Every structure is written in structure tokens, then in C-alpha cells.
């Protein structure tokens, strides 16, 4: 499964709106968030995956019904953020929250972002490997 170019653009815009990068947090395009999101989609059951893709399109086309009118990918960052607020409170609210949760996971799981927040899994895994080797653990 691969997202279409338009779907990928929607993901990028949503990531920008969800993350609102500033203060040393990198812009989503400078992380592997979009690729990670796509990888996560691959592990979902077909029905969930189709539902999330529908949500991407709903997010893209939903602003056509409001003001200012336009596709999500054409709106200014400020209007996108305002739209994501409405999106989460709208008829697809809980499903939209699920989509937003995956985007948060995708972005904050980037190695650089985690390091910025103080977490580096590298030493955790290295210590674990050493212990397992020394003590014959699984």
C-alpha cells in the first residue's frame, strides 16, 4: 500500500497543523514522520486503512464547505490549524482524533525529536543487549 501524491500532501499538511513546529522542534518535513505514518498504515487491517484514507480525503475536502473556502493543502498554516480543530469536533470527531493520534506518534517517534525531548533509545537497547549476552537471557 502506498499513499498517492495528493494523500501524502494531506499528511504533510496535517502533520504541520498537529505539530505546529517551533522552538527547536524540527518541521515534520525534516523528520521521518510521513514515512513512519505510511508504514503504520500498512500494518492496519484493510478496513481501518481504508477508513483512514477516507479521513485524509475528508480533511482535504472538508474546508471546501467552510470559510475560507479551499482544499486543506491550499489553506494557510493558520487556517489549517483552525480547520483541524473543527475536524476533531465534527461528525467524524472520534475517528479524526484517531488519525491525529497516529500523526502525533509518527512525529514524536522521530529519533531527532525524541532526542530533543531527552530520550535516546540507543543506550537503552545497548545496555539490554549486553545484559542479555552476559546472563544468557532470551
Amino acid at each position, binding site marked *: 500500500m502506498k499513499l498517492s501524491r495528493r494523500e501524502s500532501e494531506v499528511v504533510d499538511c496535517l502533520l504541520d*497543523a*498537529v*505539530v*505546529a*513546529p*517551533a*522552538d*527547536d*522542534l524540527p518541521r515534520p518535513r525534516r523528520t521521518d514522520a510521513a514515512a*513512519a505514518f505510511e*508504514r*503504520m498504515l*500498512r*500494518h*492496519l*487491517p484493510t*478496513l*481501518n486503512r481504508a477508513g483512514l484514507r477516507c479521513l485524509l480525503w475528508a480533511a482535504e475536502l472538508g474546508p471546501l464547505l467552510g470559510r475560507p473556502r479551499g482544499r486543506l493543502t491550499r489553506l494557510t498554516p493558520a487556517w489549517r*490549524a483552525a480547520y*483541524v*480543530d473543527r475536524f*476533531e469536533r465534527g461528525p467524524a470527531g*472520534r475517528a479524526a*482524533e*484517531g488519525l*491525529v*493520534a*497516529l500523526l*502525533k*506518534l*509518527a*512525529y*514524536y*517517534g522521530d529519533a531527532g*525529536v*525524541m532526542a530533543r*525531548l*531527552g*530520550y535516546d*533509545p540507543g543506550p*537503552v*537497547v545497548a*545496555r*539490554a*543487549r549486553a*545484559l*542479555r549476552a552476559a*546472563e*544468557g*537471557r*532470551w
Partner: protein
Amino acid sequence: MVTAVRDTGARAYRDGTGTFHPSARRIESGRAIAGERTVAVDACVVGSGAGGAVAARELAEGGMRVAMLEEGEWWDTDDFNARPREMVPRLYRDGGQVATVGTPPIILPLGRGVGGTTMVNSGTCFRTPAAVLERWRRELGLDELTEAELDPFFRRVERELNVTQVPPDLAGRNAEVVRRGVEMLGWSGDYIYRNVRGCVGSGVCAFGCPTAAKQHVGITYVPRAWAAGATTYTGARAHAIELRGDRARAVVASTTAGGWLRVECEHVVVACGAVHTPLLLRRSGVRAPRLGRNLAIHPATAVRALFDEEIDMWRGVPQSYYVDEFAEQGIMLEGAAGPPDQIAMSLPGHGTRLRELMLRYRSMSQFGVMVADSSRGEVRSLLGRPLIRYDLNQRDADLFKRGLERVAEIYWAAGAREVVLPVPALPRLRAGDSGPLREASIRPEDLELMAFHPLGTAAAGRDPRRSVVDAKGRVHGLEGIHVADASALPSSPGVNPQITIMALSTRLAFGLLGAPPPSHEPEPDHIPRPRAGRAAGGPRTLAAAGGG
């Protein structure tokens, strides 16, 4: 006769030596079974989690030929990279997206792979509270399930899994601030007992323990089962149990490679969890009226607080401390720390508000609220997939509100600057003022919840009209079909249920073998007895709720 006392202190918690390795890993992958294959055994165990792995090992060591069917894969510890974002899609069923349909929708994170959810849980171990057993006895006629009857089975499980108490220096700052608040308030709490061996506090129990310290059943019971001759078939999804008259005859499973595996057997132990067990039984022709109903999920949520000090939630054991002061009301508070991506995923809001919170991640604490629910749901099949219907009732929403208030009190006592609630409509609490929360009316749809302990969909009871299995786990009216997972629990025990499931599964296996209880098992030098239970499982009567 008790022959020994087992140490449950810090030394036993830290000791990582003594891992058991069988001479061979008896795994057959469904990727390699493309045609049709038939095997004949004495017992087929469906599922390799808390219930299935335990039953498989005990039956195999008792002399039975055993086949274990597991829909997921075997995961090596080397696969665990301490990164939640990468591990959630691999280790969790449906990529972590199993959810209830109802008000509010609730995510049910379930493990998928050898070890089941024990591979991705927090490792918390509490015996079934005595008050819960008493209630099951009184209301459902489960007279056999007394503390004394279950004690040797619990001792066996606890010894096998090395259930020991988290030492304070591994509990992490997240637990430390909560303990400080609890002590200021004079409330009841303690460090949690967990199934670990040589834990160093890697902070990622829920995403595959990279040190193999967490003694999940995939690296404890399953290898023992292999050593006793059992085989695990991974990538094998059970479709139905074949019956001859009212007797089990075989289990038929599809494989990842598109083939079919037919396991002929005398005994079937179903342990697919509370979501899938009722569907398998229904596909197999079981028509118990309560099958799939009576779903309780032990819903949970989390409160976050911002401090002036560093917490670094990724350091130490994520779930290392509990507060049972309100457990008699059905409210249990437990640690819920984690790395930044895990925390971000569950934080409410987005944009500037989320960013501002996440930039303060290093001084953030998170603690969980679990409610022993009186709400009930059901599981049925829709287009071949489970449809999990569950609506939280107002009584449980009120319990959540009370729990949130109590956690806020703890955080204020511990010196928090701000408290962030899992209720998007409510503002962040500041300056020790819980007024906005206290004055709010919280409806079920206002809450953001998760649930880690689905149970009750093939509930035990004496009356076949109002239950699915008997006190020994046998499906009423059928020979050779048994249930050994959380679906057999009639109601939430009010505490994490993993060793309740394991003890009942051990008892089931001993029953099938005709063996006496393992009374020689060592007595732990301490057993935690949280106050949980008197109100746990909530409804006025369990029978009225469909549990009996």
C-alpha cells in the same frame, strides 16, 4: 504442605540469571504450511497468551501431546528497539487500532504474537481480591473459587514468573512524585509486584522488553512447554472447533501461507482473549445465550502534571506504583509513564497547545485511573471481524471523575504546577485549584479512554442459562472444550487480571490431568493485598448484568 518461602524483595527483582532455554524451539511457522496438514495430539490450545501458554505448558509437562495455535508470530528480543512508534504496529493486534464502537469509542491495545498481551503489558501482578471471589461465589455459585483453593495455583504462577516488588530506586521519578503526594495525604499506596527477572528499568515494558527482564509467557511458559514436547504453530488462525455430537474432535486453522492445519485432539483449550474467544466458540456452534455478552473492559485514562523538577518518564519502570485508597469504590490508580512518542499520542489536543506540553515532557508526570466497570458491552462478528460494542454508563463516568479529582489532589500535594485532564473540554488546572474539574459535569462522551483488560464474554457460572463455562472452565453442555482466558472471568477483578487468568488456567490444566493442586509450591514472603474488590465489577448483581 508449604516447603519453602520465596523472596519477593529487591535482590530477587534484580537477579537476571537462571533463564530457562529448551534444547529446541518447537515452532512451526504458518508461512511454511501452504497445503493441508493434519496433526494428532491430546490437547490443542488456541492462543499463546496468559491463558493458553500456561495451559499448554502444564498439560505438556503432565504428559499430554500438545499443539499451540497462535495467529501472530514469534518475536525475538533483538526485534525490540525501545521505540514505541516502531513497535506498536508490529506487536499490537491491528496495529494498535482495536477499538470499541459506542460512547465513547475506546482503544483496546491487545498484543499479537507468542506471549499474547503479556508481551506488551506492564507486568503488574495482583491476585484476585478476596472480596471479588466472595462475590463470584455469592452471586454466581462459583463456590470452588476460594482464596484457599486458588492459593497453590497462584504460588506456582508467581514462582514461575518471579513475581517480585519494584525496588524504589528502579521505580522512576514518575512514581516518586506520586508517592510523595500520597504520603502527604496519608493515603494507601505501594510499589507494584511484577513478573520480572533482572529488570533495570528500561521504561518500555509495553513495547517489548529489550532486556527480556519482563517474564512474559512467551519466554517462560512457552519454552517449558516446548521442552515437554509441545509445538507452537505461529501464523495459524483457528477457524472452528469440529464436534462429534457434543464432543470436541479437532480444531481447524488457516495459515499465513494460505494453507490449512487440522489438529485432531480430545481436549481443546480456547484462549484467544475476550474479543476472539466468543467468536471462535460461536463459529464452532456453541449457542450459549450469554456468549459474547457481559463484556467488561476495565477502562482507564491518564492524568498528566507539570512540575518544576525533572521527571524523565522514560527512566525506570513505567508502572511501578499503585494507589489503592479508593479501590473499594472501584477506582485503582497506577503508574503510566513512557517515552515521548507514547505520551504525545495520548495527550489531548494538537498544535501550539500540544507542542507547548511536549516541550515540557522532561518535567511531566502521568498517572493512570482504572475503573472496575459496571458498564457492559458485547462482541459479535461483522463481515468476519469482531464488532465490539460498549457504552460507558454514567455511574462509571462518575467514578472516572472521582478518580481524576483524586489524582489531581495527589499531584497538588506533590508540588505540581499544572494538571492536564483527559477531558478536552476542561481547561488545564493551575495553582492547586481543582475547581473547574470539581464543578464540571462529566458525561461518558467527554472522556478520552483506553482499556487494557477486556473480559467476561464467556463468563463462568453455575447456571448454564446465564453463563458459558463452569468453575473449572468447561463449556456447559459440551465435552472437551474449555476456556482459559479473560473471557471466563465473570467481572472485572478491579486489578490487573493477568495472574488471575494464569492461576485459573493452571487449575484447569491440573483438572484435565487429574492432578492434585501443587501444594508444594513456595510461599512468597509477601503478597500484596490491595483494597480492591468490594465494589469491583460494579453492577448491583452480576447475574443481573449477565455475568452469571
